[in-house]
């Protein structure tokens, strides 16, 4: 307890030095907490966008469909899968899709693309297709040969809402399939590749023209709590027939998840470099402050204070200062993270760049995760105390008589 008293006295006595130390550590802590919150938040947002635009949180497919996506590996009993999904308590919505590759022929040229049969009403809850409408109208459940197509695909085919175009493709039974379609609506998701190749029709019509009744290439499932997608997928795998499998977005979008992980690693590496610099700044600053107190330490040693006791006193000072700064910095960082979580940062100037990278979001909320904030505070505390240890040990190695005469 005596060391705490000494330490507090010293902190007060060297007010300016203490203030600078507190300021430096507080700012660094706040920066770390905010940088982590921003990085995690933007990654979460990018993933959420990518998942919600079209792929969905959980996909049910034939077990071999992902490795061998052919017409032989479809869901051939969509009604059975539908029954399992309808009976699951943790599913908020689900819908079936049938994706196939076709050749679209516009008035001037033909372009290859995806033609997908969807359930218009269910799809509204599962993806952002309906809300991405830019002209015309979204599909309805009674629609016949009405097409809802990507903006870029429409541009390439030189068609607009109301125009006619045709498609030629292969039906679910490998037979020849072709029909004339009318453009009902055009969407733009900002995922350029998707907008350049995707178009949708009502599944009922699709089934007729593609001989795909009771078939689906996959079901999209929205769990009641999307953050529990893995749990829902695992549970569905127990309930579904062995022939089918449910996978969460973490598996279906593995590439993007890994890209985000790599980006996080680079983010932390950059932060790491910054913190090494900060570590040395604190170390040098502590060095200067401790050696400025050399005479005081020499006197303490001369009156019989043991080196260990001096060390303990200085470390206690360092711990108290670090604790205070980390708490302050943590609170400031947490407040910023919380504020920008509620009011996302909007990058209006970089919207085009975001699109180029296939990211639909230019407004990025920060993540507000108390546990992560505590982790960052702990890291800063260790860093702040750690950086003072070397000068403290070094100053104790000086002999008292030299210390007293130190200028």
């Amino acid at each position, binding site marked *: 307890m005596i060391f705490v008293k000494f330490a507090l006295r010293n902190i007060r006595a060297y007010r300016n030095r203490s203030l600078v130390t507190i300021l430096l550590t507080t700012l660094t802590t706040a920066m770390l907490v905010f940088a982590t919150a921003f990085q995690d938040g933007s990654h979460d947002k990018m993933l959420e966008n990518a998942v919600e635009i079209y792929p969905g949180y959980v996909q049910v497919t034939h077990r071999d469909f992902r490795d061998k996506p052919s017409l032989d590996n479809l869901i051939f009993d969509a009604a059975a899968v539908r029954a399992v999904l309808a009976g699951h308590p943790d599913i908020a919505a689900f819908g079936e899709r049938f994706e196939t590759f076709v050749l679209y022929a516009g008035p001037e040229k*033909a372009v290859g693309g995806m033609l997908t049969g969807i359930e218009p009403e269910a799809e509204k809850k599962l993806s952002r297709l309906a809300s991405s409408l830019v002209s015309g109208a979204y599909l309805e459940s009674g629609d016949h040969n009405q097409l809802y197509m990507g903006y870029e695909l429409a541009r390439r085919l030189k068609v607009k809402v109301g125009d006619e175009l045709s498609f030629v493709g292969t039906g679910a*039974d490998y*037979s020849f399939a*072709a029909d004339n379609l009318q453009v009902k609506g055009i969407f733009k998701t900002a995922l350029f590749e998707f907008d350049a190749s995707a178009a949708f029709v009502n599944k009922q019509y699709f089934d007729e023209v593609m001989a795909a009744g009771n078939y689906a290439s996959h079901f999209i499932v929205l769990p009641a709590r999307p953050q529990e997608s893995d749990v829902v997928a695992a549970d569905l795998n127990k309930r579904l027939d062995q022939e089918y499998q449910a996978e969460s977005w973490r598996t279906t979008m593995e590439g993007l998840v890994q890209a985000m992980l790599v980006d996080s690693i680079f983010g932390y590496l950059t932060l790491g470099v910054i913190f090494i610099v900060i570590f040395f700044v604190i170390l040098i600053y502590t060095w200067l402050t401790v050696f400025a107190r050399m005479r005081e330490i020499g006197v303490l040693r001369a009156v019989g204070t043991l080196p260990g006791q001096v060390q303990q006193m200085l470390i206690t000072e360092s711990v108290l200062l670090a604790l205070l700064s980390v708490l302050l910095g943590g609170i400031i960082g947490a407040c910023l993270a919380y504020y920008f979580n509620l009011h996302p940062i909007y990058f209006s100037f970089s919207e085009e760049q975001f699109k180029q990278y296939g990211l639909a979001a230019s407004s990025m909320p920060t993540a507000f995760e108390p546990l992560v904030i505590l982790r960052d505070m702990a890291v800063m505390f260790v860093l702040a105390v750690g950086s003072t240890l070397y000068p403290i040990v070094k100053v104790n190695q000086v002999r008292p008589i030299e210390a007293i005469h130190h200028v």
Partner: protein
Amino acid sequence: MNPLKILMAAMYVLVHGAAVSASPVDDLVKRVEDNLNGKTAYMEFTMVVQTKRSKRTMKMDSWAIGKDKSFIKITYPGKDSGITFLKVDKAMWQYVPRIEKTIKIPASMMLQSWMGSDFTNDDLVRESSITEDYQATLVGDDDKEYFLDLFARPEAPVVWGRIRMHISKKFFLPTTVSYYDEEGALVRVLDYLEVKSFGERFYPTHWVMLPQAPEKEGHRTEVIIDHAVFDEEIDEAYFSKRALKRFSR
């Protein structure tokens, strides 16, 4: 093939018009190509497409001049009847009566399945340009067949990295053709069976295409030539875009 035979083959080429072909192997490939294409050909054939789940039969008629011009009309089943395809050089068009439209098949669709079979659009367009796009090497032979390896020429816009062709010594027609991708993996095998005579010509009347990709397990496409007439005059009118609609009926 032993060195003596190669020498003899070389001598043969020297004596019998080496001016038209670069090597005895090229001469062999050219001869096979000519035997397959003829000057002109009219054929009626049946295509049976077998998949894991279904079996479909289609019938069609085709008219061809050399290797550059061909016209195909689907005659069965009724729902596909009247669909026509025109190939001139390396371009391909399709007419579909149901939508009353002629569509030029874009380059990006060349690897797509043709009529749901294991043949691709590219097969119809490029199959005949082997002498132009591939460099042939004789790798061996036995009593009945020559074995050739055809490697894609560096600048050739082709799909296959290598083609292994077995050629019948009796008919100078292919018997088995194996297609490998650029990584050297076997993608599909085409067998030419049941050679029959049509006038002075011999022609394989039963073709079996077996895709080797895992997702094509259980798939098989058979082409059975029901009737063929070679080297008789064919109306040039078949090989224009207007013909697609005109001869569709």
